[in-house]
C-alpha cells in the first residue's frame, strides 16, 4: 500500500455537531480525508456513522461546525451540490435499478443531469463502455442489473460514481454481502482508485477488512471521535476497544462433544439445485460451521434443513427420525429452529412489540384451556427470554424497530428458542451486528449448544467461525470439500480452503 496523500485534505469536517430532537447524534466530530487516501470510518451501529455519512452527502445539515471541500469552505451542502463537488456516496442498497440494463444504469445520471428530453442510446452505450473501461472491468452492458450477482452490482455502482467525476467515494458497509474473494477484488479496485488520486471513505465494522485496507482510521463512539490516526498505530485489540469501549478477549469453542452420542441431526446424501450428495452428522452440543463462496451450497443446505428449499433428494433426520416432508412446518415440528440471515426482511415484524415477536412462533403453547391466547403466559414467556438472552430494551412492549441490530437478532433468537428446538440453524447470525453484541451472541450460542442443542452456523465471517464452531465444513460446487476441526481450525487454514475453492 503506497498512500499518495496530498497535504491538503479533499474533504475536511471541523467540529461537526448534529442533534435530532434533543438526541446528540454527532458531537464535535472532525474528519479529514485526503486525495489518494483510504480512510476507514469505524464504529458500532448507533455510533453516528450513518449520520456522518448523510452530513457528507448533504442530506443532513449539521447544527454546528464547518465543512470544506478541496480547501474551499462550503456554507451549505445539499445532495446535488455534494455530487457537483465530487462527493459520491454508495449506500448499502446501491440505488441501482434492477429492471434496467447495466448500460442504462451507468448512464442514467448523465441523462437526468443534462436535462435532456430524449435518450440517445448510442450515447448511453458509449458512456457505459467508457465507465467500465475506466474501472478495467467487463460486464455485459445489455444484461439487466437485477440479474447480476451482488459483487457486479457493486462494480456498476462504483463505475457510476466515477462517471460523476467522483473525487471522494464513500462506501457504506460495502462488503456485507460479499465473500472473501469478492472482498479482495473490491479492495484491489479501491486501491486502484486510490492510485488515481480518488479519496475513499470506507465505512464498516468488520475488523479484518479495516486492518487490511485502510491508511487511516477514525473511530466513532456515541457520536464522538474516540480515536483517529494512521493505520500503523492500530491493531484489532485497539480498534475493538475504541469501538466498544471495553476489551474483548478472543475465545474459542470449548464445549465438550460426546462423540459416542447418537447424532441429533443426520444429513444423508442431500442433492438439489446446487447440492451434490452432502452427508454429515451433528451431535448434541456440537456447533458446525458451514462456509464457502457465494452459491457454493452452504446456503441451500441451511434452506433445505429449515424446509425453505423444497426441491431435491436426500434425507434429513432429527434424533433418528427422518423428516416426513420438505416443508417449514415439518422441519419446525421435528424441532428444527431457523434464524434467517436477513432478519429485517424475513424474520421480524418490525412494528410489533418485542413480546409479540418473541412469541410469534410458539403461540400454540401459550393458549388456555379454551384455545385462547393467555396474555399472562405470553408476557411471562417473553419476559423470560428477553431476560435470558439479555435484550436491552425499555420494555417488552417496545416495537422491535427501535432496537439495535444485536438486540433485534436476540429477539429472533428468542422466538426460535421459545419453540424448544433440538436443532438450531443460524444463517449469518451476526451479519450487521456490532462487535460487542457479536461476542455476546456467540457466547449465547455456545451456552445453548452446551445445553444439548445441535447448531449449524452458515457464515462467511471467518473469525466468527473460528471462535464459535467445533468444526467447519467448506463447500465448493455443492459438495463438502474440506472439514476443519479442533487445532486445524484457524483463520488462515479457512482462508486457504476458501481461496482454493475459487
Amino acid at each position: 500500500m503506497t498512500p499518495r496523500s496530498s497535504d491538503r485534505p479533499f474533504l475536511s469536517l471541523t467540529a461537526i455537531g448534529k442533534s435530532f430532537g434533543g438526541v446528540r447524534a454527532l458531537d464535535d466530530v472532525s474528519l479529514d480525508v485526503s486525495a489518494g487516501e483510504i480512510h476507514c470510518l469505524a464504529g458500532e451501529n448507533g455510533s453516528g456513522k450513518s449520520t456522518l455519512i448523510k452530513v457528507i452527502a448533504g442530506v443532513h445539515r449539521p447544527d454546528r461546525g464547518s465543512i470544506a471541500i478541496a480547501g474551499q469552505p462550503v456554507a451549505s451542502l445539499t445532495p446535488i451540490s455534494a455530487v457537483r463537488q465530487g462527493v459520491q456516496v454508495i449506500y448499502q442498497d446501491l440505488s441501482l435499478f434492477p429492471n434496467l440494463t447495466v448500460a442504462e444504469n451507468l448512464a442514467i445520471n448523465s441523462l437526468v443531469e443534462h436535462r435532456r428530453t430524449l435518450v440517445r442510446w448510442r450515447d448511453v452505450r458509449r458512456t457505459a463502455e467508457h465507465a467500465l473501461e475506466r474501472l478495467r472491468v467487463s460486464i455485459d452492458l445489455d444484461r439487466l442489473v437485477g440479474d447480476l450477482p451482488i459483487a457486479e452490482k457493486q462494480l456498476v455502482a462504483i463505475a457510476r460514481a466515477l462517471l460523476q467525476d467522483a473525487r471522494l467515494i464513500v462506501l457504506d458497509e460495502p462488503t456485507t454481502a460479499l465473500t472473501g474473494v469478492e472482498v479482495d477484488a473490491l479492495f484491489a479496485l479501491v486501491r486502484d482508485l486510490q492510485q488515481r488520486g480518488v479519496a475513499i471513505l470506507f465505512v464498516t465494522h468488520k475488523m479484518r477488512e479495516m486492518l487490511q485496507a485502510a491508511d487511516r482510521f477514525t473511530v466513532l463512539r456515541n457520536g464522538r471521535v474516540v480515536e483517529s490516526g494512521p493505520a500503523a498505530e492500530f491493531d484489532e485489540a485497539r480498534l475493538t476497544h475504541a469501538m466498544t469501549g471495553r476489551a474483548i478477549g478472543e475465545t474459542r469453542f470449548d464445549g465438550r462433544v460426546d462423540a459416542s452420542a447418537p447424532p441429533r441431526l443426520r444429513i444423508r446424501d442431500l442433492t438439489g439445485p446446487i447440492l451434490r450428495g452432502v452427508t454429515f452428522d451433528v451431535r448434541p452440543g456440537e456447533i458446525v460451521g458451514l462456509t464457502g463462496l457465494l452459491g457454493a451450497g452452504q446456503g441451500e443446505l441451511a434452506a433445505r434443513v429449515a424446509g425453505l428449499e423444497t426441491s431435491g433428494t436426500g434425507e434429513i433426520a432429527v434424533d433418528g427420525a427422518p423428516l416426513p416432508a420438505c416443508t417449514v412446518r415439518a422441519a419446525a415440528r421435528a424441532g428444527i429452529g431457523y434464524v434467517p440471515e436477513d432478519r429485517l426482511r424475513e424474520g421480524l415484524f418490525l412494528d410489533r412489540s418485542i413480546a409479540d415477536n418473541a412469541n410469534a412462533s410458539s403461540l400454540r403453547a401459550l393458549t388456555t384451556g379454551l384455545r385462547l391466547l393467555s396474555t399472562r403466559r405470553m408476557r411471562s414467556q417473553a419476559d423470560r427470554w428477553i431476560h435470558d438472552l439479555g435484550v436491552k430494551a425499555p420494555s417488552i412492549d417496545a416495537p422491535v424497530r427501535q432496537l439495535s441490530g444485536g438486540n433485534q437478532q436476540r429477539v429472533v433468537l428468542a422466538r426460535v428458542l421459545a419453540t424448544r428446538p433440538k436443532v438450531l440453524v443460524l444463517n449469518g447470525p451476526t451479519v450487521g451486528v456490532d462487535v460487542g453484541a457479536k461476542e455476546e451472541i456467540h457466547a449465547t450460542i455456545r451456552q445453548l449448544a452446551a445445553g444439548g442443542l445441535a447448531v449449524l452456523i452458515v457464515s462467511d465471517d471467518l473469525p466468527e467461525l473460528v471462535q464459535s464452531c467445533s468444526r467447519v465444513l467448506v463447500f465448493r460446487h455443492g459438495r463438502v470439500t474440506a472439514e476443519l476441526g479442533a487445532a486445524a481450525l484457524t483463520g488462515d487454514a479457512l482462508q486457504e480452503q476458501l481461496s482454493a475453492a475459487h
Partner: protein
Amino acid sequence: MTSRVRRLFGRHEMVLLGVTVLLSIVIGALNPAFYSLQNAFDLLKTSVPLGILTIGLLVVLISGGIDISFPAIAVAGMYITCTLAIDVRSLDHLPALLAISTAIGLALGLFNAVLIHFFRLPALIVTLGTASVIRGALLEFVGTRTITNLPPSIIAFSRTNLFEATLANGASAALTVSILFFAGVAIAVALALRYTVIGRGAYAVGADLAAAERVGFNVRRIHLFVYGLMGALAGLVGIIHASIIRNANPLDLDGLELTVIAAAVIGGASITGGRGTVTGALLGVALMVIMDGSLVLVGLPSQWHQVFIGLVVLVSTSITALRTRSARAGEIAR
C-alpha cells in the same frame, strides 16, 4: 437486427404470441366464421377502446402506480362532451369534440396525480375515490338520461371507414378509422417509453422511487405525466366508445377496469412496477379481445367472460409472484 427483434419480442411476448395463435387455431376449428374478414375487422374495432386504455394503464403500471378511475373518466369525457355538443351546435366538429373530451380526461387524470403525489396517498384508494366522485357528480350535475341522438359529427365518425369490402356472400366488411388512433397512441407511447427521459424515468420510479429521486429524476413531473396521460387517453376513448355503440350512457363502462388491468398484466406489465412493454400490452389486448369474441362464437354464454377475466388476472399475477418468490428463494439459498 436479431437483438432488435429480441428486444421487441422478449420471452414473455413470444409465449403470449404462441398462446394467441394457438387460441385462434382452436377457435377457427370450432367455428370457421372466426377466419372471416368481417370477424377480423370486428375484433379490431372492439380492440380500439380496450387497446388505448391498456396502453395508458401500462405506463401507470410501469411507474409503480395503478389507476381504476379511467372508465369513470372516459364516461365523464364522453357524456359531458356529448351533452355540450347537443346544446351548443357550433361545437359539433369531431376534432373539437375529441379535444374537449381529452382535455376533460387530462384534467381529471392530473387531479389524480396531484392527490397521489402531493399527499403521498396510495393510488388504488385515490382512484377508487375519484372514480366514485366522478360517476356520482356526473349523474347529479350533468344528467342521467342515455343520449341516443348523438352529435352528427360523432355519427359521421362512426361511419368513416379506412377500408371497405363487399364479400362474396353480399355482406360487407369495414375497418373503422378509429384504429388509426389506436395505432398512433401505441407508436407514440412506445417511442416515449424508449426514447424520452421521462419514459425511462417511469421505469426508474417504478423500480425504486427513492433511488430515482436520488439520481435526480423529477418524480412530480413523472407522476403528472403518467396519470395525466391515462386521463387524456380515457377522455379520447370516451368519444370513440360513443361512436362505436352509438349512444352515450352515463352508467356505461362499469367494470372495464378489470379487463384493462387483465390485458396489461397478461402482456407482462408488473403490478409492482418497473416492468412492461407496449408490444406485450398489444398482445395482451389481442388475447383478451379474441377470447371475448370467441366465447360467443363457440357458443359459451357471456357470463363466462367475467370468469375468464378474473382468472386471467389471478393467474398472471400469481405467475409473477411465484417468479419473484423463486428468485428470492435463490437468493436465500446462496
